């Protein structure tokens, strides 16, 4: 059954059986609106370059639908021409933009000219080099401390007993020396067992305030295994000024650990022993491999020991000519190789020194 419906001057037949809407009579303005809808609908159905070409012919070609409407524009009354002309221009640029957007997608090369190129060919890559993972770890650690105002110092690896042990409050024949098995070059010359002698060399040459980190290679006369190397790297830190406190030492280490290991790490401090610091501490963080559940990496404790530190021992200050009543300070140190192995999940420390290209290129 068909009804006549009049609505805003536009006539529709509404076929109540099919509910389809058909335009039977129209003004140019309505045709512009309708054509826009039609173009949108057709556009959404386009799948290939051929479809796109048909779309172009249907709407944008000179004899296309939009062209026909421009022809009709000539027949409308003069006073309506500017308004309708503007609408028509808008329609045309809208449809053109649809066309171009899809053309870009379907054929991103130069318009038509080089369409035959296979753009899926691999790019002309340059060989990718890598920094050794130890260097990367070291760089990250150094960057954090330099941002906190620490300068960088280095010292010799072939050291004398005096700087490596004696000034650092390891008396000759003291059991504390057993903590660091030493390679000797002669009776009094050795391969440094830690980066701590650089602290001494810095303090011997300058007055407080001192804020310095000291990266470098160290040696221990220990059997080489998956868990220990006879040559490894450390970063040492030293801060000396008036009224430096243990509390600030902890704060500095926490700041570092959050920056380096992640904002959400849990940590704890426990007393330890180093001859050149008192009080001494070690810092543990929750094992990031097992999240504290216990795994072989953390010896099933859920904790990883990440660094040692303490307040500089007054004997050390006296040995370099500082007055321990006037200045206090803290020192800290950490092993780079083990840290590197932990953060990259490297199961065997020896891999770090093999220099296998298949290993190096992974980092």
């Amino acid at each position, binding site marked *: 059954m068909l009804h006549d419906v009049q609505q805003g001057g536009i006539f529709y037949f509404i076929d109540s059986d099919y509910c389809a809407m058909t335009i039977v009579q129209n003004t140019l303005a309505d045709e512009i609106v309708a054509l826009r809808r039609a173009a949108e609908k057709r556009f959404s159905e386009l799948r290939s370059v051929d479809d796109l070409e048909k779309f172009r012919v249907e709407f944008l070609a000179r004899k296309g639908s939009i062209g026909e409407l421009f022809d009709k524009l000539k027949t409308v009354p003069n006073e309506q021409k500017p308004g309708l002309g503007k609408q028509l221009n808008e329609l045309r640029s809208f449809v053109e933009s649809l066309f171009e957007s899809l053309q870009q997608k379907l054929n991103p090369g130069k318009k038509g000219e080089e369409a035959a190129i296979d753009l899926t060919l691999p790019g002309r890559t340059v060989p990718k080099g890598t920094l050794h993972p130890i260097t990367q770890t070291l760089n990250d650690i150094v960057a954090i401390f330099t941002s906190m105002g620490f300068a960088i110092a280095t010292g010799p690896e072939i050291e004398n007993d005096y700087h490596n042990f004696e000034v650092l409050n390891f008396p000759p024949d003291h059991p504390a020396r057993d903590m660091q098995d030493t390679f000797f070059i002669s009776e009094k010359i050795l391969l440094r067992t830690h980066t701590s002698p650089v602290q001494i060399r810095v303090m011997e040459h300058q007055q407080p305030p001192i804020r310095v980190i000291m990266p470098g290679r160290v040696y221990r006369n220990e059997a080489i295994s998956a868990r220990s190397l006879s040559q490894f790297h450390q970063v040492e830190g030293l801060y000396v000024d008036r009224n430096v406190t243990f509390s*600030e030492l902890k704060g500095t280490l926490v700041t570092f650990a959050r920056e380096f290991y992640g904002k959400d790490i849990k940590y704890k401090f426990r007393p330890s022993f180093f001859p050149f610091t008192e009080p001494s501490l070690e810092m543990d963080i929750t094992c990031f491999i097992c999240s504290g559940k216990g795994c072989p990496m953390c010896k099933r404790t859920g904790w990883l020991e990440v660094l040692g530190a303490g307040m500089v021992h007054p004997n050390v200050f006296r040995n370099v000519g500082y007055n321990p009543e006037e200045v206090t300070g803290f020192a800290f140190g950490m092993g780079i190789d083990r840290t590197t192995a932990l953060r990259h999940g490297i199961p065997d420390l020896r891999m770090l020194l093999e*220099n296998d290209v298949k290993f190096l290129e992974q980092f």
Partner: protein
Amino acid sequence: MRISFNWLRRYISFDSTPEDAAQILTSLGLEVEKIEHLGKHLDGFVVGEIFSVEKHPNADKLTVCQVRVEEDSASLTQIVCGAPNVRTGQKVAVGLVGATVPRNQHDASGRPFVLTKVKLRGVESNGMICSEYELGVGDDAQGIMVLESNAVVGKTLAQHLGLDDVVLEIGVTPNRPDCLNHLGVARELSAAINGKLVFPDITAGKESSEKISQFLNVEIVNTADCPRYSAKTIFDVHVAPSPEWMQNLLKAVGVRPINNVVDATNFVMYELGQPLHAFDYQHISGKKIVVRTAANGERFTTLDGKEQKLSPNMLMICDSEKAIAIAGVMGGLNSEISEKTTSVVLESAYFSPLSIRRTSKQLGLSTDASQRFERGIDPNGTIHALNRASALIAELSGGKPLEEVIDNYPNKISSREILLRVSRVNQILGTHLSAEDIQKHLSSIDIHAEDIRTANSSSKTFRCTIPTFRPDLEQEIDLVEEVARLYGYNNIEDKMVSAIDFKSLHVSDATASDIARSWLEANGFHETISNSMIDSSSAELFSQHLVKILNPLSKEMSVMRPSLLPSMLQNVYFNQNHGTKDAHLFEIGRVYQHKSAENSSDVVHGFQEEERLGICLTGRKYARTWFNGDRLADIFDIKGIVESVLFKIPLDKIRFIYYDSSSPLTVQTIGIEINGTYSGYLGKVSSTLLQRFQIENDVYVAEINLSNVKKEERSFRQFSPRSKFPSVLRDLAFIIPKEAFVQELQSEIYKSSGNLLKQVTLFDVYEGKNLPENVKSVAFSLQFVPDEKTLTDSEIDAAIKKIVDALNRKFGAELRRV
């Protein structure tokens, strides 16, 4: 240090778990590295008694046993058993359903398995009667393990075997000798939980009141090394195995039980920390003990049966004729306690830590006793330990000690007194602890802190009396640590350093090595880090001034590398053997030399360390790709890389030195001079060297000293004005004799052309077909840039003519039409 949890609880009541104890001890600085539940693998195993044994109805070799496994119950558990030695009335080890048998003796790999309720040939079996092998307590797999007849039915097997203990493995730091025993660890635990220590009973039963001097005298010759020597004698001793409880505790801490006398001395050492030694009195000549140093070349056989060569500084325990022990290290075979021993001399001494350490190091002999002496035991604990041990020996062996002890203590060591300022504690720690808190913490570890009035009353000062078992507490700062430790490190605020002065913020300049490192990384090189310690025979090829290690780990790591080249070749070799033939590697690292000649710039006199950049290319320069054919690397690749790296550093005053003859290490060698100083070389590794490192492919290397490149020596580039007028390009090709050098040609071109010529680029080198044998063709692209006006053709032609004439004159070069 192994601490038995059962043993520990003899001195302190502690109701929580071993894990809790471990956590507390760790927070006090006694790091528990491992917790070992000794009988864990025996969970689910109990002592059972076999009530009856019947033949299995369907199997010849099996029996059906009824076993009692509960102490106060007559109920029986049926178990099918295959062992030939099973008998009624035996006490046996029974694995109940659900238990994990540690080792499967019917499986070649011996893997553990879980017991379930099963039917064996139609008969139900509810567990297993186990062999020693299956339980992991022995190797006997022939039959079931038969327990002592007095074993208590229903007891866990772990309890029965004395394995119901937990061992805390503590990493005792060298400063805490007082914690190398159970009482010391208990003292720490007690301080943390505010507990009370229970001291071991040292009251002996009957002691003889005879004078000891008629049996024994002690003379200390070297009182510096032996400040105190105490001794006691015990007669009528019956040497026998010690009781089970003592054996179990000793085994738990890793000490092998020997007999009641020796075990008692070991027990006291692990209990109180005082090492003791028991001599067989029969073997002490002249009723006399003399403490003296060894004679030069003296020899002595220790308890372990080894003959030791002694030096004159070693302290010995002797009788009137001979040495009977190396003081504080090990006793002698000649006076050891045996089954025949009836009279014992117990030694309880304090030796100088330094002397014992020296002796132990020299002999390479480290014992439980020497480790304690060299760290420092309590000099005032000798008598207490002596009485404890003699009471134990009397109890265990029926021996009769003399009441009187010998105590030779010429150099009394008294308690140290240290002043501690409350203000100093808070200044160092950044805390606000009260005087009372500090006093309380110290007294919890037996440090008496007495308040002394000072003129300045704003800060309290304590006079602290340090017990002699704490030799590590020497000065005020040591007490600050004690306070911090007991207050709890984790209770101290984490305060960010506010005092950091950012005005002095160090902005680190990229060093030459930083720049080289990032350029090489960006250009496809992998950074290596190699061992600085290398094999001496390859090192000798590179230098006569080697730094040699006196005590190397191995021959392969016995000298410090004098050059990066051996490290690089080692890396090439490793990669070649692991299937990587193309390697572009670099390393920035130190090399080391030992030249005793006076050199004021040495940090450590006579030793030079230099930072070098090593670059190494082997195999193909380019791998084969769709856009590049592959090509082997050659000398011009390494040369170009060196040129680019140095340019980037930036270094502009570079000169290459072309050697007439090459070194034995490299051929095609080019020396590198930076700012007028010889700084390294590049070249192709010689075939002899390749053979030595077993390398198959050619290797191109460069090694440059970067230590010389100080910041001020690096170039700082200045702006130069660009011409407003168009530049002109001309290409010229010359035929020149084969032996002429392109570099010389190029500099002649610059020299002869006048100042319009700005750049000369070599773009082709050709020899071979269409050219006579003895010549080559080289082609250059010349760029002329005018400063003041546009160039005319005739001006350029004139310049070119000058060039062509000069080259012809100098090199016989002929212009070739291109």
